[in-house]
């Protein structure tokens, strides 16, 4: 071990780290004694050791302690006790309430007549009770509707969950766990079409990196979008009136709708959709005049500016006349 000015630092660190044995430490100390300017450096190195601050403690670490085996044992004992009491209660109930089928005298007699112990024990065994018509007591299984709902959600296009044409009859809440089939957009903006108010789908979304869903077990409840309620269509008399009026009073659709509502109280409850559907069904919608768009309407500068119409004077018209005249127009005579 040769210590010089080029390698002394690594020896100092090894010394501080405690990696040098007794002889090596002695050699180093001798070298440091011969080079007193390195003594300070050694002291600084010794101060680079960190001493744990015991005063720093994590508050609430006790909450991480799990209940030990003692409590589990107690819990187990409690369950065993409950089971035992239930068993005893069942036996007593059977003997005293439903025990008509069991012939107690014969049981006692068999016990008195010193039958074998095994036989007397087997005679105390309860016969299985078979309930009649228990199938009717079963609740309807949720598996099939759940499958249906899963199918619907799985077959949905991104951003839109559309039900099958056939209405889905789900009367209870469902838990659908299939995060891989749904994309984030579909979860945020679902659109489930079905029977109004009957379906409530509850989607349990688990953590999924692909979908960038960070929250675990996020529950999102959806109600089926309320479908437009079917209203009574226009009656035959109303239809006749509409067909008559459409030729007598041709108007753009909006105006015609308002006109009908004012025309007769029969049309008070009629919706725009209903009228449009009727007109389109009878190919009358195309007969209505089209309302001109704003840009196609004749310009009305007076209304636009909110000013009074300026009536030009006769002299002004005469002055403007040459400018407005067409180029191919014959020139006025000089006479």
């Amino acid at each position, binding site marked *: 071990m040769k210590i010089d000015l080029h390698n002394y630092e690594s020896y100092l660190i090894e010394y501080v*780290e405690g990696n040098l044995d007794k002889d090596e430490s002695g050699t180093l100390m001798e070298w440091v004694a011969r080079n007193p300017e390195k003594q*300070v450096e050694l002291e600084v190195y010794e101060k*680079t050791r960190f001493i744990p601050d015991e005063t720093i*403690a*994590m508050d*609430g670490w006790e909450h*991480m302690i*799990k209940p*030990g085996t003692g409590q589990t044992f107690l819990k187990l004992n409690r369950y065993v006790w409950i089971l035992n009491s239930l068993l005893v209660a069942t036996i007593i109930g059977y003997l005293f309430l439903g025990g008509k089928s069991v012939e107690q005298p014969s049981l006692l007699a068999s016990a008195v007549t010193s039958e074998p112990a095994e036989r007397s024990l087997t005679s105390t065994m309860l016969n299985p009770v078979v309930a009649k018509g228990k199938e009717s007591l079963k609740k309807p299984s949720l598996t099939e509707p759940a499958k249906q709902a899963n199918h619907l959600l799985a077959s949905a296009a991104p951003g839109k969950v559309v039900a099958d044409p056939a209405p889905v009859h789900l009367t209870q809440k469902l838990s659908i766990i299939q995060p891989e089939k749904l994309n984030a957009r579909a979860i945020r903006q679902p659109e489930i079409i079905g029977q109004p108010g009957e379906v409530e789908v509850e989607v349990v979304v688990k953590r999924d990196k692909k979908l960038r869903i960070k929250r675990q077990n996020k529950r999102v409840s959806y109600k089926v979008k309320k479908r437009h309620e079917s209203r009574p269509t226009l009656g035959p008399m109303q239809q006749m009136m509409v067909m008559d009026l459409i030729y007598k009073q041709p108007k753009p659709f909006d105006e015609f709708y308002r006109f009908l509502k004012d025309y007769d109280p029969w049309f008070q409850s009629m919706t725009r959709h209903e009228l449009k559907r009727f007109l389109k069904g009878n190919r009358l919608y195309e007969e209505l005049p089209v309302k001109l768009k704003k840009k196609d309407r004749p310009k009305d500068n007076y209304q636009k500016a909110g000013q009074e119409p300026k009536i030009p004077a006769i002299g002004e018209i005469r002055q403007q006349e040459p400018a407005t005249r067409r180029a191919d127009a014959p020139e006025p005579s000089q006479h």
Partner: protein
Amino acid sequence: MTVEEFNTCVRMYSNRVYRFILKQLKDSSEAKDIVQNTFEKVWNKRESIKFETSKQYIFTVAYRDMLNLIKKNSKVMLLEQLPETSKTDSRSYSDLNEILDRALSTLPPIQRTVVLLRDYEGYSYDEIGDITDLKESQVKVYIHRARKSLKNYLISIEYIL
């Protein structure tokens, strides 16, 4: 590992892991989160963990969680990125621990980790290598560099001299 052994681990190591993480992150809530996550993972895998090796496992999990958090929050503060004033701060300090903490914060994360594992927990180079996924020689080099940097820092602020 039984439940009792797990509880012993919590009693023995929770504060140690907390101090180890807190020294590096300087954020008590994050340090607490990491400790809780660590022991949650240990609890979930208690069947496959032996009590004898639990300490190393706990520190390894905590260290990796901390690295992930540092990456996530971009809390890496390299020596080169520090302002010049922090390197040559000539203020007088009354407490050596405070100066050492400042010196520690100037180290790269890996050097900080190996020094703290060495000094706080007394791990050997080999064990530190297991925790930090480094070779023994690399650990030794990092510790040497860290000690040199700490020494230079202490000398530069002329605290000792």
